[in-house]
């Protein structure tokens, strides 16, 4: 018995005196998309270099994630150490002091290599509050074979008149090909992302300098009337329930002559594994009306650290790794250049290996450059954001307006009625929030 006790005591003292590496566990909250999943798979490369850090992942669908992360950060719940957030959240959260400025990303991080428009979108008052992981704009994807057959030639920067004409000409319902596929599903990040960007090109704006909603303006009327008319004449049936995924499926199956959506779609529709039209896709800038703004948006999923985190150093180390040039090289070495996260760094668009496998690279870069979150519209506005206004109220208002516009598309209401309902709903919310009296 005594021996046993001695042995236990000895073992215990050994355990206590054993040198231990202080382990830091980082909980990373992220969205479910292929680039993020790939990063998850490569985490071991990071932990091999940083044996004192363990990384755990919480992956959620983006709307679930937004709600989850917002609740946690607003209550300082401290459940996450690294957050994946979009360009919409960064300015709002930075102003609320919810985020830690990223000023220790390391000497070789090369902040100036970030694409200027993307960097602007995650910078507030001169400080970087999130590190972009991948960025996107939107552009026209079109079927080169159908255009050739019809004797049409897509300009690099088409006008809406050209796009509308081409869609009507190429529309062949009997042959199962629709002239154009566009988002119609209601939601601030669904149809409103497209329609807000489209309205910018028509000279419309969400609010004037005094935060008065502008849906009663002729520019908005022209935007919505053009959209509804175009989709009725040359769009697929049931378009009011189509989002990115539905249109991706239609386009990949060869059922759309044109599709205007996120630049990240380009790598999917040109991938022969997933697309029947992989070798017949051309790219062009989102359309304009000659007013100096194109109908393209700007978005970047970025990594940020919540204020109050006790693991800032480790979190910043992880972010620096995940958004570095070396990470791009790591993905290229392991999974090929076509799989590297796009849209964040200038150097990627100068890399001949990348340009060789990404025929859409040039147009993606041109689209990102053509978007300006600080000056999104023809007339001046008090907000930042191309396809959204970066105010906390926008999610709710955007979705309400999106429902009206989706109803106009499905035909259950008219363009005029949808616009006046959008105007009154937005006025009500903006009054309630105290922007206008």
């Amino acid at each position, binding site marked *: 018995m005594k021996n046993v006790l001695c042995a236990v005591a000895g073992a215990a003292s050994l355990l206590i005196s054993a040198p231990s590496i202080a382990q830091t566990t980082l909980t990373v909250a992220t969205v479910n*998309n292929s680039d993020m999943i790939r990063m998850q798979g490569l985490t071991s490369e990071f932990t091999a270099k940083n044996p004192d850090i363990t990384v755990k992942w919480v992956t*959620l669908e983006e709307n679930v994630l937004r709600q989850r992360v917002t609740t946690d950060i607003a209550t300082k719940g401290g459940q996450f150490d690294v957050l994946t957030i979009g360009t919409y959240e960064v300015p709002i959260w930075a102003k609320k002091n919810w985020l830690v400025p990223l000023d220790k990303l390391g000497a070789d991080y090369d902040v100036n290599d970030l694409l200027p428009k993307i960097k602007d979108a995650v910078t507030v008052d001169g400080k970087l509050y999130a590190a972009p992981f991948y960025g996107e704009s939107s552009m026209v994807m079109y079927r080169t074979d159908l255009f050739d057959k019809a004797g049409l030639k897509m300009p690099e920067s088409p006008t809406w008149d050209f796009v509308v004409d081409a869609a009507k000409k190429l529309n062949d319902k009997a042959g199962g090909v629709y002239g154009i596929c566009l988002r119609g599903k209601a939601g601030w990040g669904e149809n409103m992302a497209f329609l807000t960007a489209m309205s910018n090109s028509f000279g419309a704006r969400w609010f004037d300098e005094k935060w008065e909603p502008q849906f009663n303006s002729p520019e908005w009327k022209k935007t919505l009337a053009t959209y509804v008319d175009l989709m009725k004449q040359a769009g697929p049936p049931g378009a009011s329930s189509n989002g990115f995924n539905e249109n991706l499926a239609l386009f990949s199956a060869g059922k759309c002559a044109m599709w205007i959506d996120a630049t990240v779609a380009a790598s999917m529709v040109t991938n022969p594994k997933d697309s029947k039209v992989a070798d017949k896709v051309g790219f062009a800038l989102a359309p304009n009306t000659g007013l100096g703004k194109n109908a393209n948006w700007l978005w970047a999923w970025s990594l940020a650290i919540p204020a109050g985190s006790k693991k800032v150093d480790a979190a910043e180390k992880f972010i620096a790794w995940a958004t570095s040039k070396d990470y791009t090289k790591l993905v290229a070495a392991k999974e090929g250049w076509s799989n590297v996260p796009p849209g964040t760094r200038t150097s990627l668009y100068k890399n001949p290996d990348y340009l060789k496998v990404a025929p859409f690279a040039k147009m993606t870069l041109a689209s990102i450059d053509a978007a300006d979150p600080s000056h999104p519209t023809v007339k001046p506005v008090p907000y930042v954001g191309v396809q959204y206004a970066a105010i906390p109220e926008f999610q709710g208002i955007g979705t309400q307006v999106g429902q009206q516009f989706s109803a106009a598309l499905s035909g259950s209401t008219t363009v005029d009625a949808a616009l006046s309902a959008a105007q009154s709903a937005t006025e009500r919310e903006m009054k309630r929030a105290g922007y206008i009296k």
Partner: protein
Amino acid sequence: MARMVTTRNKVISTAAAWLVGFLIFFPILWMVLASFKTELEAFAIPPSFLFFHWTTENYVTVQERSDYFHHALNSIIIAGGSTLIAMLIAIPAAWSMAFSPTKRTKDVLLWMLSTKMMPPVGVLVPIYLIYRTFGLLDTRSGLIFILCLGNLPIVIWMLFTYFKEIPKDILEAARMDGATIGRELIYVLTPMAVPGLASTLLLNLILAWNEAFWTLNLSTLEAAPLTVFIASYSSPEGLFWAKLSAASTLAIAPILVLGWFSQRQLVRGLTFGAVK
């Protein structure tokens, strides 16, 4: 002649029942089929029903990317725990209200139900703050607690209606024969209430298993049940239908099997009273 009509009627009603059953079951079948397709086939228009290239790669990917058993175990503990505690509280409550009601019983029942009328998101922030203060965020006990509270009104209501169906005369007859309260409870009441208890238990288990608001919002990693597991496979930008279907099939499998084995009790319990 009469017999032939009966047979024909039987055939028709059986066929109709199978058709309705198949229609109701179809979404689940479709999900299971989609889980064996490639992402491209899962999205194909027109969809292929049975003649596609069957693959189990989605299940492999899902298992590689997330730990199914960790989530499933959490679901079992959380749904089972909250159901047992809810039953322990609800049985005496319903019993007393059914067999010795006071003039306030109706108000109490209504008040309990009124707690279900508020959308849960309305109290998300206060609950989150309380949980943060008491260190209950991302713990199984925290989730058991909230799910138990959330389902309690339904459990009490269900049990109350079952108990009320039991005629008091039978209890009186037992008492006339000299049964003590203990004997009355065990030998007279319990056997009559078993179908009701079983179906309430099962329904509550299913409700707790499927609960997605609180389980998503109050858990992160350690206590995350299958709802979180499913939510990590849905995406507005990208093709994830096949993997999502595989994840969902895995998530409903345990409760489906349980339901299959106990469907007799469930049906009997739900129709209890109507047959008398």
